[in-house]
Structures are given as C-alpha cells and as structure tokens.
C-alpha cells in the first residue's frame, strides 16, 4: 500500500531512534523513526487503543557474545525486546492490545561462514516472539535491501523506505 498524502501526518514531529537504541511515545501526533536498518532489526510495538508506540533498533541477536560485560540492552534482541515491552507497559499500554511489526534483517549473498547477522537476527526474533507470545502482524524482513522505517503513532502504520523505491506502508 502506498502512503496517501495526509497534511496533518506530513507535519508530525519525529523522534529519531539510533542504532542500538529504543524509544517510546505516548503522543499520537508523532513519528518514531529509524534509518538504514541493514541487517539490524527494527521492531515496532503499538497499542492502538491507547495510541502508545515504541521502536527498537537492535543490531545483534544475542547479548551472550558479551556475557559478563556491561552491555547496551537495546543493541541485542534478547535484551532489547523485553525492555521495549516493559517500557510500553510502564507507559500505560496493555500487552494484549500491543501489535508488533518487524523490519530489516537484510542478508548478504550466500555464505556458509561469514556475515550472517541478518538471518541470525530473524531467527532470534522468531524465537522470542514465540516465547513472549507477541502478536506479530507484519514481517518485512530479509532480502538484499536497506530499509528505513517510521511508525505513525496516530495509526500504528509503519512507512518503509528502500533506496530507489517508492515508500510503502505495512
């Protein structure tokens, strides 16, 4: 679905989420934005009834590679997703009303031994979404494209931008 022109949405302020970071917003008149996911995953949570949204930009699947060291939780899916969920619930969202969407996980050309972060991230997200019983309503992952996304906190729509292609909504 191509995004239709909406003068109100077009002027909404944006909150930028960097790599290895997460942000939430209780303000409907807002976009949560993250650029250039590459092989990282962008995970959005949205409570439509209360219009509370959150966005995580995680780089790696598991914090275990840094076991025993101080970590940035949003860098890893296994620590970032529970933290995003907790932040939304603290802000007033209810888990049964949260819909989740996932983006990114681009993969380099087939190799057996190198550069498989994209596929490892997707596998980890799948396992976590099962374990945490997340209601995942959109998967826009894998492939060889670098995605940028923005979550419209009024509607829960996620607008996806890919180099040289028109934007589309998931």
């Amino acid at each position: 679905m191509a995004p239709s022109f909406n003068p109100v949405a077009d002027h909404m302020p944006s909150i930028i989420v960097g790599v290895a970071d997460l942000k939430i917003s209780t303000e409907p008149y807002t976009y949560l934005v993250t650029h250039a996911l590459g092989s990282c995953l962008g995970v959005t949570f949205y409570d439509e009834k209360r219009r509370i949204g959150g966005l995580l930009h995680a780089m790696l699947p598991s914090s275990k590679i840094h076991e025993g060291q101080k970590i940035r939780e949003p860098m890893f899916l296994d620590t970032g997703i529970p933290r995003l969920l907790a932040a939304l619930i603290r802000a007033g969202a209810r888990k049964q009303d949260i819909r989740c969407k996932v983006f990114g996980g681009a993969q380099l050309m087939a190799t057996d031994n190198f550069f498989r972060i994209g596929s490892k991230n997707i596998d980890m997200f799948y396992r976590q979404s099962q374990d945490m019983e997340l209601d995942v309503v959109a998967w826009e992952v894998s492939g060889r494209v670098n995605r940028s996304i923005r979550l419209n906190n009024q509607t829960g729509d996620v607008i996806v931008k890919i180099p040289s292609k028109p934007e589309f909504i998931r």
Partner: protein
Amino acid sequence: MKSAADLQTVVEMTRSIPCAPAILPKLLKLAEGSSSDLGEMEMLINLDTGLATDVLRTANSAYFSSNQRCENISDAILRLGSKVLYRIASSTLTGRWLVHPVRGYGWEPGDLCRHSLCVAICAEIFATKMQIADASTAYTAGLIHDLGKFALAYANFTALDDIANRVPDEFATWREAEKVILGFESTQVTKALLENWGFPSIFVSVGYYYQTPSESPDAERKIVTLIHAAKHVATQLGYGVGVDGFYYEPDEDALKEVGFNEEEMDAAIPEILTTIQRFITPSGEIRFT
C-alpha cells in the same frame, strides 16, 4: 555509454569536482617522514582553510587541550603528532569530496560518506585487533575504497538506473551488471583516480581488488582482505548503504586465509558501533573531528 573510452570520461569529469583529496598522498608522505618535514606540512595544511580550521579545532578540543591554546598550525602539529594529523586530514579531505550531492545508487545526500566512514572505522578496529595492517593506513583505505562509485554517480550515468533495474533478475551481482552494462567496473575507476592523484600502490590495490581479494598481489592481500571484511561488516550495519550494497559476494577463501572468523567479527561489532556513533549522529549527521 559502454566502451572503455567512457572510463576515461568519468575520470576526466571528476577533475571538475572541488575538494578532491589529491593532496592526501603528499601529506601521507610527510606524516611518515622526519620532523624536518613539519614546515612543509604546515604550509600544505595552511593552503586549505577548511583543513586548517579542523586541525586547530581538534588541537584545542577537550581531548587534546592543555593549559595553552594552540594559535597556529605549527603548534597544532606539535601537539597532535603526525598520525593524528594525518587522520584528521584524510577524514576532512575525503569526507568533503564524498558529501557532494550526486544521484545514483539510491543514495541520500552524504550516504557514501557515512558508509565509507563506517568501513574506515571497521578496518581500523580489525587492523588493531588482528595486527594485520597499520591502523592509520587501514582507516584511510576504508575511506577511499569506493571513490570510483562516487565518480560514476557524479558523472550522472543513466546506466546506473539500468543496473539497479536489472539486478538481481538478470545479474546475480552488481559487479557482473557493471561489466556488461557499463563495459567496466567501478573498481577500475577507483584505480584510475587514485593513480592519477599519486596515491601509494597499497591504496590503489585496495580500490581495485577489495571486491575480489583472492586476486590481489600477495604482498597486499592482507590489507585488501581487511577492507573486504570491513566493507561487508559496514554493509550489515546499514549506514549509507545504497541499492547496490547487498549484491556483493564475500570471498570466503581470502577471509579464511587472513584469519578472519565470524564469531570474532560479530564480537567486535559493539565496539565498532560505539566508535561510529561518535562520528555519526542518530539522524545521520557526520562529525569528523
């Protein structure tokens, strides 16, 4: 445009782009030389107002600053040392060139600069961890590895759109498509540019072979493979990656030969990312110094 003559056309066109990093090889030579070259280095830096400003700003930054302010370039050179100075120069000169707005590859303004900076940082960190190349050389090699693509985009080839439209349906890799549609590869353009500017052969080899390190001369295989590895890690990170980014084939044989393994590369990513985020803000703004 299909013939080999077009390669020369692209190289010629880049002569009109301001801020080419052409004085970099001269600075590199001086940075490696003795203290008697400091005067010449000062003269070279003073020729470029933007570079001189960056050097002074860094010398007076909280990190380097002592009680006394550096008021001129010669004091700044003594305070920073030739290696730091060279790093500032390579970032400033290359970065300025790479941020010119160009079309092609689906880049947003500054994307090639962001991506090249990520490759440079990955290369520097891997070089230090694995002790396979000088860290400053690796950093510069990362910055300049894809100058040919910038030149192609600057030349505004409609053929770039053709490549984007035909990969992956007709061609598995971007390289194959370049060969058929352009008649040459972007790495050939990089090689020609770096040779024209008098860059040392190690950088020319990086620019020409980084996509196929197994084909590089034995003496330069390690640094070429290092940039190959850094390029792929940086691509996964996403910063500035265009429509071509994920259509390059990793050279597993070369990576294994040099001693790379996936686990160690993945484990280095948090450090790489933290370093990158000192230079690139979440909104994509680049701060070189």
